[in-house]
């Protein structure tokens, strides 16, 4: 159901202000969404003045700097810091992306950092992705080749392998799904761009023998057709993939297939 306003317990309040202590002339204000599960309080926005003279180029560097030097209580996910693991997906300057690959120079004015949109917040910048992982599980993202021997190699032509380009690179960071308004309003039923891109990846895999069953499975009003080509997903993807096009391709296959 479309709910434009945030629920009462999710309304964001003004938080603390951390003034710069270094005396640097090159400061930027960083506004960060905070929520502490151990209190009964609403989420708040804390503002930090960060000395940009001693800060590397990415948004994750700012967060690390804040955690190390200004406020150790701030919580966020991060691991590889090279755009491979997908842990540090968050909303920066109003757009989803990976903090480790987003340059803070690309953001004008104050730097606003929020968790991925429309998720239950676990703490600060950490959103609950359980629902998305359950949906990912529901499309059975593994190779199904019952008739073929499990000990010998399944040969794939170069052309067939090429079909997986643009789909297999997905790191499941959830930037796309949590940027999608359709997923915000119908996330309990609509699979969302991340999962549909993976559904597509297994549908077009020449080695997979369950193509028809997979197509039938996503051919559901809410599971697939809630995509209205808003393209927030494609513009959010930090790996430059195109989930919206993959969804369109599935729709095309369903329109032309004789299931």
């Amino acid at each position, binding site marked *: 159901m479309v709910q434009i306003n*945030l629920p009462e*317990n*999710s309304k964001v309040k003004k938080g603390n202000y951390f003034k710069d202590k270094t005396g640097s002339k090159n400061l930027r204000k960083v506004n960060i969404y905070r929520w502490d599960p151990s209190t009964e309080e609403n989420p708040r926005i804390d503002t930090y003045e960060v000395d940009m003279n001693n800060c590397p180029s990415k948004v994750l560097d700012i967060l690390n700097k804040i955690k190390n030097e200004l406020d150790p209580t701030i919580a966020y996910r991060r691991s590889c810091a090279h755009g491979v693991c997908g842990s540090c997906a968050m*909303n920066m300057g109003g757009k989803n992306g990976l903090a480790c690959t987003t340059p803070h120079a690309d953001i004008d004015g104050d730097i*606003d950092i929020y968790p991925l949109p429309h*998720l239950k917040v676990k703490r600060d910048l950490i959103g609950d992705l359980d629902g998305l992982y359950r949906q990912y599980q529901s499309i059975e993202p593994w190779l199904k080749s019952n008739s073929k021997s499990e000990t010998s190699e399944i040969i794939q032509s170069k052309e067939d392998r090429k079909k997986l380009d643009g789909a297999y690179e997905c790191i499941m960071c959830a930037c796309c799904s949590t940027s999608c308004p359709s997923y915000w309003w119908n996330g309990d039923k609509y699979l969302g761009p991340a999962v549909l891109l993976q559904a597509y990846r297994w549908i077009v895999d020449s080695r997979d023998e369950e193509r028809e069953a997979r197509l039938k499975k996503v051919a559901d009003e809410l599971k697939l057709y809630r995509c209205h080509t808003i*393209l*927030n997903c494609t513009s959010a993807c930090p790996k430059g993939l195109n989930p919206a096009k993959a969804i369109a391709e599935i729709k095309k296959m369903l329109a032309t297939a004789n299931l």
Partner: protein
Amino acid sequence: MENKEPLSPHIQIYRWHISSLVSISHRITGIVNIVAITLICLWASLLLLGESKYETIEFFLNSFLGKFIILGLTWSFLFQILSEIRHLIMDFGYGFELQTSKITGLIVIIGSIVLTITFYLIGKNFI
């Protein structure tokens, strides 16, 4: 515990871009058009009530507010048509690249405004 966790901000903070603007406008103009068609049907059926009623409507439509509504509806219909063509092309699997979708989105926005002005000018010259 379950309900204590807040929902992270979504539409309040997410930045708009051409494609999302066209998409939401497509929905809004769609709803406006349905209402408009109902009103046009009502207008047509009011004709049955005779000349005096027709003149009242005529008077209203010639007022500033009436003209504003007519031009607004012209834009809303044109926007819907252009945006629908864009959707049709996308249904064929084309135009999903970010740059292309931005250009087609701009064509829809600017095109609908230009066509509305054209319609207005054509109307002016003929009446």
